[in-house]
């Protein structure tokens, strides 16, 4: 089956900076694809080229097998990272305004209920909380019942509860078999929501696949975390464990948990406050790029 969106050798060159450096990927119908990476990796530039907001320097984008045309705007739902709305207008009026731009729209009541806007419909958009505002922006992006929904860093700046609520909204959208393109620098968000991810760094895609596939192909192990002061300086030289220092902890990537713990005990390491977890996308990112994710 033909992908809904195809991206071939996309390049965006700014003066002295290659923000997007020849990337290619496909977005299949009904999937949620995540572009992951630190700030400045080129995610927003990529997604804004796909949305038709900024032109590419070179490369090709195909929507349903054809070039992007005016019809694409009727079929795409877009939620930008930073958006201001007209001032002194209520939530209801804002929805009515944006609804008038499209030929085919979803029933407003349905959207108000699904995005939980009912409690503040008559409130000025300037007086909304962060979570309320993001839900309104999501509702605007969904007004035209889009075939593809672009979400650029949708939960940045939200508190943990608002983030979880927002994730549930995106899961509901996914349940309707909508195609979603999501950018985020939160690895847990990508893991929770995306069927497929492309990890970007310095304008390039450095890994691509489902979160589970990516983790499986790069790690066959668990991560043991211990406080830094529990680890004697001599340990690195005296044993074969792979050690990584992260802040005030040392992380040990282990293929055989039993033998690793036995080895630590043999070296006299205290296992107080020890944590064992599965590797995350953040570990993968660090493994691939060698630098901190939010640097």
């Amino acid at each position, binding site marked *: 089956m033909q992908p809904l969106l195809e991206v071939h050798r996309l390049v965006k060159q700014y003066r002295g900076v290659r923000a997007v450096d020849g990337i290619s990927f496909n977005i299949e119908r009904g999937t949620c694809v995540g572009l992951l990476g630190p700030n400045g990796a080129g995610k927003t530039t990529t997604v804004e080229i796909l*949305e*038709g*907001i*900024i032109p590419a320097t070179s490369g090709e984008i195909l929507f349903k097998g054809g070039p992007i045309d*005016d019809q694409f*705007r*009727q079929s*795409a739902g*877009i939620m*930008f990272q*930073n*958006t*201001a*709305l*007209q*001032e*002194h*207008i209520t939530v209801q*009026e804002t929805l*009515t*305004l*944006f609804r*008038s*731009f*499209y030929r085919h729209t979803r029933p407003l009541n349905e959207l108000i209920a699904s995005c939980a806007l009912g409690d503040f419909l008559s409130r000025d958009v300037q007086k909304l909380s962060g979570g309320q505002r993001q839900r309104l922006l999501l509702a*605007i992006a969904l007004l035209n019942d889009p075939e593809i929904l672009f979400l650029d860093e949708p939960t940045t700046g939200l508190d943990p509860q608002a983030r979880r609520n927002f994730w549930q909204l995106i899961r509901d959208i996914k349940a309707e078999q909508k195609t979603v393109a999501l950018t985020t620098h939160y690895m847990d968000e990508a893991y929770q929501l995306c069927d497929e991810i492309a990890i970007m760094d310095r304008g390039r895609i450095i890994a691509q696949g489902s979160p589970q596939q990516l983790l499986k192909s790069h790690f066959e192990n668990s991560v043991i975390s211990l406080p830094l002061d529990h680890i004697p300086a001599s340990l690195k030289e005296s044993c074969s464990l792979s050690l990584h220092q992260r802040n005030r902890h040392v992380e040990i990537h282990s293929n055989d948990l039993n033998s690793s713990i036995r080895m630590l005990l043999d070296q006299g390491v205290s296992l107080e406050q020890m944590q064992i977890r599965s590797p995350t996308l953040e570990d993968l990112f660090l493994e691939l790029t060698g630098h901190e994710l939010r640097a």
Partner: protein
Amino acid sequence: MNIRRFAATLVARNREFLRDRMALSWNILLPVLIVMGFAFAFTSDNQDLFKVGVMGAPGAGGAFLAIQHIKFIPVDDLESAVPKVERHQLDMLLDLKQRRYWINRTSANGYMLERLLTATGNVFSRQTVNGKEIRYVDWLIPGVLGMNVMFSSLFGVGYVIVRYRKNGVLKRLKATPLTPFEFLAAQVISRLWLIIMVTGLVYTGTDIFVGFRMNGSYLTLLLVLALGALSMISLGLIVAARMANEEAANGLLNMLSWPMMLLSGVWFSLEGSPQIVQQLALLLPLTHFTQAAREVMIDGAGLWEIRWHLAVLSAMTGIFMTIGARTFRWE
């Protein structure tokens, strides 16, 4: 053009303006206060520069023509000079040959000049101005209305679109099927409608407080208002076409509006000012608006008499709007 998209954008912009109480009250109150202030100030006129139209050889005026701080302006014919006394464009008209003078009895300047003339030992006979004499406030009102239209047009469109661009409102609209033409048309029509409404309120308000002359047709005046506003809104569109910096836009709009206000004869007649200034003033839409409005309100001029001003305002609207729309960018 999709009428539904245009109408929704128009309604949203109108709501935004009408609910911004600060901006709305400023738009209405400021011109009323200016007119009231001037109406009171000019009952005891304290202008330090008098304008006297002089016909005939200057030698015959004697000591009066040597007084400082009076600008003596040579005039060629009485027929065009006498109405200028009526309209406070000249404080006095002196005919040295026939030894007579004209003043406007409602003008404090005219009174002072008459006293000066007799004090310098000249014997001239006083002539009454034919027709109804007008007060300075009658002459001022069209100018103040024009000034208000200018500020509202330039800043209400130019500054607002630049702010939309800076804070991302335009970027969000770009992502919808709304076209630049629909968006700009909504901004222009919204501002035009608001200007007509606000000007109507200001006109009525000042008429109640100070009362002024309206000798022409209200429909003709409405046409002058609409064309004048459209020409200046279109000028605002040029400023708003690309800029994304509010401070720079503010500076540029001030750079356009202040010289326009000073050169268009809003406050004082340009009579007697250098020819180059008078020529330059004809390039400004506010000059044509103010002159046309004065001719309608004071002289009762009809469409035919002000055709030249209407043609220039229409041409300016067409040129400015084409440039503004063609150079417009969402980002």
